[in-house]
């Protein structure tokens, strides 16, 4: 499994070794390159969704919940979301995240059509969600492969609005 954190598109892979129920982090790769990391050992607590996390010799407790492919993690008073990806899969949440509907809503304006070349940051669509306008912008320069909705269409959260190629 590959992982990314929050909005960042950086992909991580963690290698763990199992020693009597403690999983230790033996290798961390960051976009294919080995990255330095702390000494981390994780054991399962008797409580369902709780993990005991030892970081460089100090003990911490993490509470976790899985929603879809994401792990939601509460540790040290902060909440984080770690997205799981099949190895080698396209980045569906971060890199092209702007191309999916962030909320259920209505398409107000369409500014792109199939075959058009767009530059990074160009507004492709404007949608209204919960009384707020939201601009859907190109995350990178490329060619619009398809625009899946028209003005006035209602869209569900997560619906792919525009497909963008290189």
């Amino acid at each position, binding site marked *: 499994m590959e992982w990314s*954190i929050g909005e960042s598109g950086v992909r991580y892979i963690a290698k763990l070794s199992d020693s009597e129920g403690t999983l230790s982090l033996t290798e961390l790769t960051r976009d294919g390159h080995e990255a330095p990391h702390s000494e981390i050992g994780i054991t399962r607590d008797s409580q369902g969704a709780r993990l005991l996390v030892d970081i460089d010799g100090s003990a911490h407790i993490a509470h976790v919940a899985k929603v*879809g492919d994401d792990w939601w993690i509460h540790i040290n*008073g902060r909440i984080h979301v770690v997205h799981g990806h099949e190895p080698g899969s396209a980045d569906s949440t971060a890199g092209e995240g702007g191309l999916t509907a962030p909320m259920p809503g209505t398409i107000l304006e369409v500014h792109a059509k199939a075959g058009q070349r767009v530059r990074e940051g160009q507004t492709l669509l404007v949608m209204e969600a919960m009384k707020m306008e939201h601009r859907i912008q190109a995350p990178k320069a490329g060619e619009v492969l398809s625009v899946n909705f028209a003005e006035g269409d209602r869209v569900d959260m997560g619906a792919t609005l525009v497909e963008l190629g290189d």
Partner: protein
Amino acid sequence: MTSAPRPFDTVLVANRGEIAVRVLRAAKESGLRGVAVYSDPDEGSLHVENADQAVHLPGTTLADTYLNGDAIIEAARSTGAQAIHPGFGFLSERADFANAVKSAGLIWIGPPAAAIDTMGDKISARRCMIESGVPVIPGEEISIGGDSDHLGVLASAAARVGYPLLLKASAGGGGKGMRSVHEPKMLRTEYEAAAREATAAFGDGTVYVERLLKGARHVEIQVLADSQGNCIHLNERDCSLQRRHQKVIEEAPSPAVTPTIREAMGEAAVQAAKAVDYEGAGTVEFLLSDRGEFFFLEMNTRLQVEHPVTEMITGIDIVQKQFEVAAGLPLGLSQSDIGITGHSMEARIYAEDPSKGFLPAIGDLAMWRAPAGPGIRVDTGVREGDAVTVDFDPMLAKLIVHAPTRTAAARRLDNALSDLRALGVITNIGFLRQMTTHPDFISGGITTDYLDSRDISDFAEPDPDPAILVAIAAAASRFGLDRAGSGSSESFVDEHTGHSGDPFRTLTRSFP
């Protein structure tokens, strides 16, 4: 002005979510039966669980359900409820509903309809306050004739109002034809610019000149009045930390209010309430300038979201007092009984994403564990497993703390926020933690324009260590802790969001 006791033993709460839970619990503690109403999406929600009886309101829109006065009065009749508590929002400030409740022979737990009417209209409220001697923001409306000495008329009005001031075309709007003037010599230039900007608006010849209050704080006074003419105040709340007029953190007492200001503002609030023959709990909002002057803003003729901070420092349950007043009982309190013990703060927990312009967030609360401990109170309408949808307001809960001092309260709030484990839905908890620990907040110098004049990235959370998070995610997968995925037997799970079922359905429990 006396009235006979009007006892009741059953109260219907015409609301939902956090405030319905709050009122239903207070009813139980007052020995009353509680009746809830609910629309389809709220079937099985926490407020229904907290009621002795619940009545379903059929229909799909708010007009069919929580705003349907006739259906709610009928629900009270059919369940034997003799009184209706409106909570806040929905029908709470609708004078016609208050009258309908009374006409149906039921008790309205709220102020007289006339008080709602007078205070609900900005112009009539301002007129009423001027007549009763409550300070309002200095301002006057002047007529400027086509060929008369309009600058002379304007200048004398401006001198009476005081600088800095705001020029507004009374028929204008949306910021058009509105200019701020900081000193007399700029009056002519700014007036001409404003007139150019909104020719049509100024065409009717009416200009409103109002004092411009910069760097002001939002300070409000909680009042309680009974049907026998007793009216007291429960001190102030400071709600200066706002984002686009939405309050973020409220506290009591206000760090900017001295005993002298408190006494004067409290007296003005009581005067305001008496001017409309107020009954029950209400809030008089003021703007407090950096010079210690305060001006009436508006009166909220209902319970307010932030009422708990006042309860914490005074030890008075405001909702129970509402019940007593509605039952015709005297307040049983005089102004000298009201003190201030310690300091209280309330943080509003919203399902919203601060990094995306506070876009409301939806999803399932895969984990919802509220903090507990001395001086911590959580008023919430959600439970673990509930779905957060676009149907209703995105406020999930209010986290309230009470501590001996303001510094201790801020630290307790930060600790409680860090213990609030809300997983599955993006919330503003991290942003609130950045706020409560920010030097500008700690110093107590926040004004109402603070957040809107800041770059929100100033309050971004510190970057996490990716190794720790990735190791935890990988380990949790290896241990098979994905209980949310396996525990749900919903037929449809949105792959993108992990959200089960129709996103327009709400508060259905989808986890065991």
